[in-house]
């Protein structure tokens, strides 16, 4: 793309063209302003968590202040945060395991086999995403209250699987479609059954994709708010705990922010470590 020996008649590279209307410094400035806009709330949350109460609610918000760790010490020693963490961890891990276990075989068949109704099945799975949450929430709520699934880990996990499985199937289908089908065809030549071809040939190669989908499912479950809020009471997950914090301690912004930072830690870790996998997942497979 960047060949230096340009023949006289060759057109300018599009990048060069754009440079004419928009100076590089201006383009860079816009890109960084947008980055600042994306970062600012997170930055502000972090600074709030390091402020004394007087600084946190001062009328002239301070950008320069003496950081203190008291908020973190208070929050981490109270045990509340750990409880939310513990709950979210169980629910998110359970959801991820179950959704993957159930979703991967379906995704494989949808990606590899032509059968009657394949496209309709794919559309149906995706259409479950269209359902307004309340349409699912009300039956869940009524049934959970009657059957004792209300306020249980299993109940929350099942609800989260119901929400995430369409994404799991959708993304895994994309990953399987990217793998060459010649692999399995060769296995069939050697007399492998369809299941053996799936289990021993395709699945190991698809592991990176599976990992990416697992991370995304975990993230969705970790961040999910509405179902966790309604279908449980004592078992509060991270977002629900945070929401209730806001109600209880309106003014103690420092501790509130410190809790939020602690609860965001796994998310931020995921973003930094698994950036590439997340891009594909968070754009719902549109970007390979």
């Amino acid at each position, binding site marked *: 793309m960047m060949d230096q020996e340009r023949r006289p008649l060759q057109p300018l590279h599009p990048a060069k063209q754009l440079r004419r209307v928009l100076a590089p410094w201006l383009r860079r400035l816009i890109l960084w302003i947008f980055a600042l806009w994306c970062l600012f*709330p997170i930055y502000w949350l972090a600074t709030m968590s390091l402020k004394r109460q007087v600084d946190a609610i001062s009328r002239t*918000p301070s950008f320069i202040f003496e950081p203190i760790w008291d908020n973190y010490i208070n929050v981490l020693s109270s045990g509340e945060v750990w409880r939310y963490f513990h709950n979210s961890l169980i629910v998110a891990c359970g959801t991820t395991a179950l959704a993957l276990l159930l979703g991967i075989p379906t995704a494989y068949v949808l990606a590899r*086999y032509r059968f009657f109704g394949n496209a309709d099945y794919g559309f149906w799975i995706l259409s*479950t995403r269209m359902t307004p949450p309340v349409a699912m929430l*009300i039956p*869940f709520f009524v049934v959970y209250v009657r059957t004792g699934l209300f306020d249980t880990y299993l109940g929350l996990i099942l609800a989260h699987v119901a929400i995430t499985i369409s994404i799991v199937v959708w993304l895994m289908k994309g990953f399987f479609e990217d793998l060459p089908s010649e692999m399995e065809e060769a296995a069939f030549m050697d007399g492998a059954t369809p*299941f053996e071809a799936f289990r021993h040939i395709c699945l190991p190669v698809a592991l990176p994709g599976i990992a990416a989908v697992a991370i995304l499912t975990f993230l969705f479950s970790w961040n999910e708010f509405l179902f966790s809020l*309604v279908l449980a009471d004592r078992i509060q997950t991270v977002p629900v705990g945070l929401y209730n914090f806001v109600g209880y301690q309106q003014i103690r912004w420092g501790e509130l922010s410190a809790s939020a930072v602690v609860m965001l830690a796994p998310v931020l870790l995921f973003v930094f470590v698994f950036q590439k996998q997340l891009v594909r997942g968070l754009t719902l497979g549109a*970007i390979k």
Partner: protein
Amino acid sequence: MTSPAARERRRFIALMLMPATVLLVGLTLVPFIVSVVFSFSNLSLVTPDDFAFIWFENFGRMFESAEFWNALRITVIFTILAVAVQLVLGVGIAALLHHETRSVPLLRLIYLLPLAITPVAAVFTFRIMLNPSLGVANYLLKQVGLPPQDWLGTPGMALATLVAVDAWQWTPFILLIAAGGLAAMDEEPLEAAQMDGAGPITSFLHHSLPMLYPYLAVAVVFRSIDAFKTFDIIFVLTGGGPGVATRTLNLLAYKQGIEFLSMGYAAALAIVMLIITIIASQAFLRRINLFRPKAAL
């Protein structure tokens, strides 16, 4: 024609589809049908013993109530504004990013953050920043000589703030998809056009943008479906207020069903929401042909 191999193939397909199908039927289809049934009833957990089928009364009540039409209006305005802002901003930034050469990985990492962050945590931060007297937003406005705003206090402003916060969270979604589309694009026609003397903006509008359509169509459909049923941002930031100024259909259904426990009426609201979503997206989704299996065994 049913050879053993063909039979085994069919059995394999059925077995592989079974687990997720059972689960999807049990956890999404059945609840949905139950919701439809509820929507024809007067089910209320306040008076569970008075259960009776009242058929279309819920829908009649809904269509006659001002709160439904108000919520529908707000939901449609919010969805259109939010998706439009995100589309323009997302594609614009993606086009700029496409030509950038320095620190692109870092920028992409930063752009990814709003998408991944727990929405409740982000929205809670916005609440602090937008506090009329103590928040940093009004402080910054004052520094540049602009009057302070009551961000969530007046109806118009509250809706605008919600659109902005939704744009904060979701512009990167369109941005990343558009950037991926641009990266995958064949640039030859573009170069040919520029050889013919087309300017960069003309060539972007006439050549890059049409090639981006398939990507943007998917992005806009998904984004619109989700914006239509936005919950976290509105619930935590305004709770539907001030008054009912930002009470969308989803919040209205939540309020009726979960707070007032009139499940029948809330179910009817949800069904109407779903019908609107399906009508709006069905034609679009079918056309972009997402559902053909690409390889066949």
